[in-house]
């Protein structure tokens, strides 16, 4: 066996956080209010188009749970110049891929295609922004489809949508923040074409959306196409977005759910964190903290819960219900979840997690550990930015949530600037505040 001195192959020089490649951003706002971000980049002959509407699960009215997501499905059911299925056929038949997704604060639609299909993609997105086909027939069809989506992801499997569907009920109080974003079947089944028309009218106005285009195109030509196809979408009034923030918890909360299909327990913990938009400087240390606690084999919780104390089968700590720290506004939270053997109690796990937070709070974060975490953060941001779709989506989300597409480009430097003391202070704040605990108990017998 070769004897190599370990230090011989491990660089001792600190790794400097690399920056994202420069992407010049061009912006315009159409007369109808549509905000447009153009991010040309000719490294590969592909383009991405992303349309973000400023409406998500949190905006659903009572009695219409799941409507934002159902509506996202219906937006693929045809528009004035594209019969049902034609949107998919035009994008895929051009050599591209498409999808849409519904989040707490926005709903997005996106395509990645060969560069020569850009004009066609813009035409397709503009057509459904102007006039989607909202018929009872297609709504009924998509209600069936969404019910099967819920069965496959939630009802027919153990740990379905745990904890994103269940933890909010413990962590928050308002209907906007606690209700089931996938939707009750009763609510879904009663959805009508009138509801859809009203939802579209209220939330899908061009002034309530952001269009981002990234990849291999000329700015002048793209501007002309954007103006031609999106410019004709008639301006409508944009909705006033109510604040979704909630006051801090005044006591620890605890709830249990029984999962009839699970044979081993799971645990989720949620804490409130600062406003990720209006109080970004206070929020960023929590992003670094979540990475330090839970990302990679070197993290504190992986070391403690998996390798040292053997308390968990798996662990994860992350910001935001869906694990993206930058895709939600206030209120949002830091989440922890673990699967664990029945012999381990939830209390043991909670104690271990709180111990580790306390250790960061009181013992601080050493230079080497902070450098490791910053290197991991930098690497992950760079990797996300490599695909043209990832870049384009981050520009659209930055523009919609933070009011600045440039936010995505500035993020690596801002995170690299988070000091060890701020991370320790964030951990101390979490220890000082109240938490929401959700235990999943197995109902299937081990």
């Amino acid at each position: 066996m070769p004897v190599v001195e370990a230090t011989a192959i491990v660089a001792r020089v600190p790794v400097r956080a690399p920056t994202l490649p420069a992407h010049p951003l061009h912006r315009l706002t159409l007369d109808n209010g549509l905000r447009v971000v153009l991010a040309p980049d000719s490294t590969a002959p592909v383009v991405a188009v992303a349309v973000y509407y400023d409406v998500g699960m949190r905006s659903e009215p009572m009695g219409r749970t799941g409507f934002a997501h159902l509506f996202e499905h219906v937006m693929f059911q045809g528009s004035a110049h594209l019969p049902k299925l034609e949107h998919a056929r035009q994008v895929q038949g051009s050599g591209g891929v498409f999808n849409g997704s519904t989040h707490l604060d926005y709903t997005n639609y996106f395509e990645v295609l060969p560069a020569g299909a850009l004009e066609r993609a813009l035409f397709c997105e503009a057509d459904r922004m102007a006039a989607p086909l909202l018929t009872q027939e297609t709504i009924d069809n998509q209600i069936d489809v969404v019910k099967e989506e819920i069965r496959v992801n939630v009802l027919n499997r153990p740990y379905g949508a745990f904890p994103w569907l269940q933890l909010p009920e413990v962590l928050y109080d308002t209907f906007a923040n606690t209700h089931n974003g996938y939707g009750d079947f009763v609510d879904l089944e009663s959805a009508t074409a009138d509801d859809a028309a009203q939802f579209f009218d209220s939330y899908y106005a061009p002034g309530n959306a952001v269009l981002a285009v990234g990849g291999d195109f000329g700015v002048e030509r793209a501007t002309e196409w954007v103006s031609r196809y999106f410019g004709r979408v008639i301006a409508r009034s944009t909705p006033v977005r109510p604040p979704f923030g909630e006051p801090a918890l005044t006591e620890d909360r605890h709830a249990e759910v029984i999962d009839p299909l699970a044979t081993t327990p799971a645990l989720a913990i949620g804490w409130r964190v600062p406003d990720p938009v209006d109080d970004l400087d206070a929020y960023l240390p929590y992003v670094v903290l979540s990475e330090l606690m839970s990302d990679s084999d070197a993290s504190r919780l992986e070391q403690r819960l998996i390798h040292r104390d053997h308390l968990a089968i798996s662990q994860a700590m992350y910001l935001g219900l869906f694990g993206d720290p930058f895709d939600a506004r206030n209120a949002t939270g830091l989440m922890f979840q673990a699967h664990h053997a029945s012999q381990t109690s939830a209390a043991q796990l909670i104690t271990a997690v709180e111990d580790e937070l306390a250790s960061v709070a009181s013992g601080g974060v050493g230079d080497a550990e902070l450098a490791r975490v910053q290197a991991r953060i930098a690497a992950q941001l760079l990797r996300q930015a490599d695909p043209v779709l990832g870049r384009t989506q981050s520009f659209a989300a930055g523009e919609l949530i933070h009011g600045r597409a440039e936010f995505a480009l500035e993020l690596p430097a801002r995170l690299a600037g988070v000091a060890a003391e701020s991370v320790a202070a964030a951990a101390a704040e979490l220890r000082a505040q109240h938490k929401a605990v959700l235990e999943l108990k197995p109902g299937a017998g081990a």
Partner: protein
Amino acid sequence: MTTETSSELTNGDTSESADMALPPLIEARAGRAPRAVSATLPNGLDTLVIRRPTVPMVEVRLRIPLPAANSATAAATTARGSLMSASMLFGTAQRNQERLANDLAAVGADLSVSADADRLLFSTAVLRTGLSTVLGLLAEVVTSASYPSAEVAAERDRLGQRIAMALTQPAVVARMARSRRLFGDHPYAQTMPDLSVVAGLEAATLRRTHRDRVRPYGATLVVVGDVQPATVVRQATSAFADWVGPARKSRVMPLPDFDPVGITLVDRPGAVQSNVRIGGGAVGRRDPVYAALQLANLIFGGYFSSRLTENLRERNGFTYSPHSGIDNSAAGSTILIDADVASAVTARAVHETWYELGRMALAPVTQDELDSARRYALGTLALSTATQAGLASTLTSLAGQGLSASWLTDYQKAVAGVTIADVQAVSHRYLSVSSLATVVVGDAALVENSLGSLAALRKPG
């Protein structure tokens, strides 16, 4: 609402102002074909490097063949592969688990190790400046992973728990049932390690298996990113110099025939949905009709604009995400068709799927269908190889069948030349209901009666 078909739209809709017509597609400039630098290192390790400096990162893959020799060793090989991959980063001759994890994270890396029926796979991305560190640590792991006994014992328990959890997931149950039906005595029938075999594994066994099987000959190192290929080859040569072993090729058992008659029904009492799984033999990437089969697969169920999606989802609302695809494994290729459908419509969904298979097998596809599938196949190939990670994974997968990057160019040419008659011929051969096996996992009390009207029901093997 307009009623144009797609071809009419493409030609322009004269009833409205000219700019309301669907814009034309412009022929995009061709993407740069990946220029791969390949080298076989003195120890036999095949190395493939591509410069792709889109972000200052590097993707690294190391694929090591680990097939089971035959059905008798399949259970042991699968269990050992799983526990080895879970324990391999628990320390080396120079570093304990924590030190190794820290040194990887310090250069932005998060090395993962996975095992399947064909291979072990190491995978990570790393900051450009950390590539030599990662190659050094990877070499340290393959030459001196220590498998500390106490840690391996704890991981064995955790692996057992993870397997037990996986066995409660309907998608896992369905995959296992279809693999048993298709592969019988072949090692591929073993898609999940047996709990009892895992429970009996000792650290010493892993150390011995590692010594015997983790060898450079037949392995492939793939590096894609912001690198100078010549430098990477030098770095790899030096890093892996002490990783040696005999020039022995691991043998793969050919896939067996299976009996396609009847529907296997796996009872899952209380299920609110049925997992329909269909499968059968396919041709692999080296075969002259592979491109035609890929296009036939797309038209049938391989993308959203397929017949299967239009029928099951968009017309009938039976399912959320029906899909078909071709799995390319070392021992052979397989066509796989999946749909998770509401219990009440299970038999109707199977019937509609068979109906669409019959249409593929018996009648020609349209020119529009073929053109769309062709553009999709070419476009998504360009998309998937436009990123460092996508290119690295594609090349690693090709290496699994002994194929190099030049296959991508050959495949593009083959796709461009596929005709309607080609699609018809491969569909008749590979998409005939009579040559495919059907498996359903669901609540037998709800689906048995109606499924039985389609075909004889078989008990899971």
